[in-house]
């Protein structure tokens, strides 16, 4: 599971790794296609590529969204993608690395995110955005990525019954799921296919 630490100088860092039964190149290709990341990362609303190295990110926040530009620092196919971002006075960076698993088929994918929590009102907005548990959010997102890559789909109980402790409206969720299924069928944006051995 991901863990979060506060580094010297006040930078916060979350890091995690997991094994995915796909080749480093398959994972790299899918992740590098940033515009499709909103399918994977719950908080990301949209990513627009500005040019080969720069992209514009819109991420949900309480009462709206925040936006920033990110620039690729290091991009080695099948190995690593790292980037840093700015906007909203937020200093942050991310690195995703793909390495052949030492045992068995698959890839060890590791992710490191670093950011400096800013002061003031913007800082408060960012704190809300990252939630009280960014490590948890990262784990949930990466397990979704793993499922997509290994099976071509994500198992979910969204739209299905749950207890009264969850207040989201069930009928709204069912309607949304059905609409999304129709639009996805019309425009399949994600790599899919039967699970396969990667070596």
């Amino acid at each position, binding site marked *: *599971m991901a863990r979060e630490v506060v580094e010297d100088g006040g930078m916060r860092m979350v890091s995690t790794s997991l094994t995915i039964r796909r080749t480093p190149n398959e994972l790299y290709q899918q992740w590098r296609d940033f515009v499709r990341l909103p399918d994977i990362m719950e908080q990301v609303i949209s990513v627009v590529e500005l040019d080969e190295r720069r992209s514009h990110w819109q991420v949900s926040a309480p009462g709206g969204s925040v936006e920033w530009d990110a620039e690729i620092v290091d991009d080695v196919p099948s190995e690593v993608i790292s980037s840093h971002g700015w906007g909203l006075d937020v200093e942050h960076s991310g690195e995703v690395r793909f390495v052949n698993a030492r045992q068995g088929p698959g890839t060890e994918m590791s992710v490191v995110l670093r950011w400096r929590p800013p002061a003031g009102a913007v800082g408060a907005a960012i704190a809300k955005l990252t939630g009280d*548990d960014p*490590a*948890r959010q990262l*784990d*949930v997102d990466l*397990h979704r990525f793993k499922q997509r890559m290994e099976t071509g*789909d994500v198992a979910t*109980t969204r*739209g*299905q*019954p*749950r*207890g*009264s*402790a*969850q207040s989201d409206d*069930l009928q709204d969720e*069912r309607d949304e*799921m*059905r609409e999304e*299924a129709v639009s996805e069928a019309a425009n399949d944006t994600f790599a899919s296919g039967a699970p396969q051995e990667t070596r």
Partner: protein
Amino acid sequence: MKAVCFAGTHDITVENVPDPELILSTDAIVRVSSTAICGSDLHLYNGYNPAMKMGDILGHEFMGEVVEVGSEVRR
């Protein structure tokens, strides 16, 4: 239907919840006849699963009868 629901760490309730519905063409609805408690249920009960949400229904080690399937489900 009746369901065993997660209401927080070490907090489990039995409630009446809405029945499931077919939503995706690959869905299947299973009428559960019995379900066991699994070791991983203890992780959920103890609050160690980060993806666990309030209200989630427990009991993934179940047996039952398939009563309804989506259009893309084949034997």
